[in-house]
């Protein structure tokens, strides 16, 4: 039995083990892995997700049991301190000795911290491990508790720095990205794309400072500011250093292995170091005089080392390594592939730029115009996967290459079909999965849907960038085999939402059990189909959420938004945002009486947080007595119609935006839809109500209203599209009745109007045909259905507080009047908040 010792249990060290144990030959070897970190290897690429849920387990590459089950000895929390090459042994920091036949260095790298004066101060962090993130979160919480407008800087405007910038934003601090170079992501972007990216990032709240060299970090013990020049000082409460990486080659240096001038252990194309018994892989390995700071090349190196050790010596590392990257920032698309900057001697570039839409696309094409050599995409990277494939596989490009990046409306061509890719095309570069492998597992019947394709091939489990393409390939292959691609709602029904809508409507079912018993698969329902059918019942029969409350989603069940400690928030309707001083006072008094944290919402309403289940009906009784009604903030239903003051007050106003906004909000209040719906009405084109960011938006113009549909904020912001121009109030209502009802009938579960409208075959033109020209002959029905919903509206809270049976629902215990004794609140800026999660 030969001994293999792996030093470092990071992403690549883990991948080595995974690939090793998958080989039949591995039974002749015993693997021992040492990791300095306290936990088994985790997915560093998705480290930022830790900010969302602080769930370290969710990031694990494999649970600790996996190693045991595969006969791998995993020793975490123990650093390897020394290598003795002559005796082929290693010594750990706990002074234990182990001998090896093969040693694999996978020690990765550590963040580079430039030697700036004051960098040791409290409040300066790096961004590499889960512990780093935990420390940052704790520090940010301290800052947030001390002051409302804390700031954090990020030193370094590269890929990682920008990701850290987003994390700072999510931690509730004001982010400032400080970059030494004159552009962002200097390794991936040219100056023009960097400028476009800067505009985009500034629009989501990141402050960017370019060409800044930091002289020193100021503060007494803890950081308070960064100094660039004499009078150039930026006040900050926290700093995250993201200025590059340094390979952790200290072990290799100490035992005399060849290392590069700027660090890293020199390896050849078999991943061997200058000692034939020692391999180096991942971010420690210096290959082609390069450290590749990406996970995909690291995985390839792991594969090569595995094959070499088991004796398959033909397997070597390719000379060219693909460095294409896509930034994972939510809401900002940035990608570069191949050669992003190219000297004119090698080919020419085609550039498309639209600064107002934060769009920049550049492709580099060979002189003969036949090959795509690389490119940069900012603002819209939807075509990244396809362009990347065209580049990787040297596929033919259109005669006029500009068509690859021009918007289709301006002569751009739709990119080819995924099925046109050659079988060898590498779809997932992290796991080296080809198109042939993906199609193969489906054709052989091994996989029958996206989930099983992913588990059979591992495609999409690395950086996740290829997921959309894997999904497209899966669907296309299934289709080519004549297998119907089901979009059934869950395991309990073989129908999609639209089918169920028709079934319930035609058969007149009124309860969940009737639908399940007659059309289900024999199961008992779940958290996917129950709320869906509840929503359909509401659309078809105008039921409120009180009718069958056990099938309602978490929020609808108690007519309030559940917050992270299990208490609720209360949002009364304030139509159009108009509220009398008396009502405002009433809200304040009620909030005070029940000690509720109070905040103005993004939809300009007032949100009262921290109500216990038992308090909800008491609070609502009082609100109702002051003339309030439910705001449906908890439902997949109309939230608000945001308005500007319009011609009532504003000197530019062209029409009464508030009056119309109130009318619309009162018209559509309470209707249940596939997802939430928001509206906006602006009194003129200055658009103060941000109506184009809503599902429906109106802007007053000369001669009537312009109607826009299908916009939203959220993770993928979209502007609404112009639907009709200069129409009067009655026409607006007619079109909106039809539009919303059509959406409620045909969208998928949890699909917002933007996504629905985009995926409608025929797009906006088709939608206009149906809504305006009544192409399907259903306009009358749509209007009637909507009118029924409007007529049958009832305030759910008024219903609930007047019915003693319904009131029973709002008790934490069935057998006691007590409140939940597990609740802990802590003070925050003169109000309270739930204790942070551990």
């Amino acid at each position: 039995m030969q001994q293999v010792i792996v030093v470092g249990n990071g992403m690549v060290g883990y991948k080595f083990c995974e690939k090793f144990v998958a080989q039949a030959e591995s039974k002749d070897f015993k693997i021992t892995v040492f990791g300095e970190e306290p936990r088994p290897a985790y997915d560093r690429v998705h480290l930022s997700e830790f900010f969302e849920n602080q769930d370290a387990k969710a990031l694990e590459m494999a649970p600790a049991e996996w190693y045991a089950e595969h006969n791998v000895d995993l020793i975490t929390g123990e650093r390897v301190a020394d290598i003795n090459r002559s005796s082929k042994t290693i010594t750990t920091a706990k002074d234990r000795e182990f001998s090896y036949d093969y040693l694999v260095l996978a020690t990765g790298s550590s963040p580079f911290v430039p030697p700036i004066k004051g960098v040791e101060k409290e409040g300066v962090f790096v961004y590499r491990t889960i512990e780093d993130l935990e420390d940052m979160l704790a520090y940010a919480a301290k800052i947030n508790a001390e002051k409302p407008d804390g700031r954090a800087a990020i030193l370094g405007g590269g890929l990682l720095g920008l990701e850290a910038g987003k994390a700072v934003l999510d931690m509730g601090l004001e982010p400032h990205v400080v970059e030494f170079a004159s552009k962002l992501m200097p390794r991936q972007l040219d100056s023009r794309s960097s400028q476009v990216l800067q505009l985009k990032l500034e629009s989501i709240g990141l402050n960017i400072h370019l060409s800044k060299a930091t002289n020193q970090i100021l503060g007494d013990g803890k950081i308070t500011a960064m100094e660039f020049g004499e009078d150039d000082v930026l006040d900050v409460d926290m700093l995250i250093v993201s200025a590059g990486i340094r390979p952790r080659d200290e072990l290799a240096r100490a035992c005399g292995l060849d290392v590069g001038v700027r660090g890293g252990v020199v390896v050849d194309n078999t991943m061997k170091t200058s000692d034939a018994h020692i391999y180096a892989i991942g971010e420690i390995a210096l290959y082609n005089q390069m450290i590749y700071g990406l996970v995909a090349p690291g995985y390839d190196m792991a594969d090569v080392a595995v094959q070499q050790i088991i004796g398959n010596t033909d397997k070597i590392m390719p000379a060219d390594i693909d460095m294409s990257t896509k930034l994972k920032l939510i809401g900002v698309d940035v990608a570069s592939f191949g050669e992003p900057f190219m000297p004119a001697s090698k080919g020419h570039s085609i550039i498309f730029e639209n600064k107002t839409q934060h769009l920049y696309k550049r492709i580099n094409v060979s002189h003969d115009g036949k090959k795509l050599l690389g490119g940069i995409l900012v603002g819209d990277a939807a075509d990244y996967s396809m362009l990347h494939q065209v580049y990787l596989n040297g596929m033919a490009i259109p005669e006029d290459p500009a068509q690859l990046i021009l918007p289709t409306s301006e002569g751009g061509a739709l990119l080819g079909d995924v099925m046109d890719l050659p079988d060898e095309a590498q779809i997932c570069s992290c796991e080296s999965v080809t198109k042939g492998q993906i199609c193969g597992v489906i054709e052989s019947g091994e996989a029958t849907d996206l989930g099983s394709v992913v588990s059979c091939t591992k495609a999409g489990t690395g950086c996740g960038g290829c997921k959309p393409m894997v999904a497209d390939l899966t669907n296309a292959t299934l289709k080519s085999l004549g297998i119907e691609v089901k979009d059934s709602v869950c395991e309990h029904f073989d129908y999609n939402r639209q089918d169920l809508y028709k079934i319930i409507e035609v058969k007149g079912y009124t309860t969940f059990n009737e639908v399940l018993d007659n059309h289900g698969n024999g199961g008992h329902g779940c958290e996917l189909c129950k709320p869906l059918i509840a929503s359909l019942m509401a659309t078809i029969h105008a039921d409120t959420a009180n009718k069958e409350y056990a099938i309602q989603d978490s929020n609808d069940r108690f007519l309030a938004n559940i917050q992270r400690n299990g208490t609720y928030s209360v949002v009364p309707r304030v139509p159009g945002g108009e509220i009398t001083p008396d009502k405002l006072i009433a809200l304040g008094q009620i909030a005070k009486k029940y000690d509720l944290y109070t905040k103005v919402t993004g939809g300009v309403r007032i949100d009262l947080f921290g109500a216990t289940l038992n308090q909800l009906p008491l609070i609502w009784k009082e609100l109702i007595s002051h003339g309030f009604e439910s705001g449906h903030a908890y439902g997949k239903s109309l939230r608000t119609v945001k308005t500007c003051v319009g011609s009532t007050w504003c000197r530019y106003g062209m029409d009464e935006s508030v009056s119309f906004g109130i009318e619309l909000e009162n018209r559509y209040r309470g209707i249940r839809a596939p997802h939430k719906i928001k509206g906006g009405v602006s009194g003129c084109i200055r658009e103060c109500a941000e109506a184009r960011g809503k599902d429906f938006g109106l802007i007053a113009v000369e001669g009537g209203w312009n109607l826009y549909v299908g916009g939203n904020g959220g993770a993928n912001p979209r502007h609404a599209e112009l639907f009709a121009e200069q129409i009067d109030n009655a026409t607006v209502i007619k079109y909106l009745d039809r539009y919303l009802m059509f959406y409620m009938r045909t969208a998928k579960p949890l699909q917002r109007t933007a996504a629905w409208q985009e995926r409608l075959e025929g797009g906006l033109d088709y939608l206009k045909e149906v809504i305006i020209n009544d192409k399907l002959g259903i306009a009358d029905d749509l209007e009637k259905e909507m009118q029924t919903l409007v007529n049958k509206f009832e305030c759910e809270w008024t219903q609930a507080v007047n019915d003693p049976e319904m009131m029973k629902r709002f008790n934490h215990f069935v057998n006691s009047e007590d409140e939940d004794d597990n609740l802990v609140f802590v003070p925050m800026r003169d109000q309270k908040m739930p204790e942070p999660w551990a």
Partner: protein
Amino acid sequence: MENILDTYCATNIEDVTVWFKAASVADFPVDGGACVKYKNKQIAVFNFSRLGKWYACQNLCPHKMEMVLSRGMIGDDKGVPKVACPLHKKTFSLENGENLNGDLEAIATYPVKIDAGSVYIGFTE
């Protein structure tokens, strides 16, 4: 905070020494749950009427240690009766407490019996 988990131990029907009378059958929603207070414990009790069965488990969700499971929706995962936490929809088997869509610790389950219109939960102490 974690030690609050130790308050809850899975209990087998053979080991029950106390049958606690919690409330009447009518106090629980059909195919839904409610929370019962027993000493310092919070127990989620579900009336799975489609199966004609009752289930009880800790009210504490092991994901973020909040007392919320009784407010979750019930259903089945390939035939295994389950509850979905209302906060992040982690699902747990009502039969043995296992986390069905992740690898959280299993939750503690308790036996339930119905006698003369009342719901009883079994404890060992």
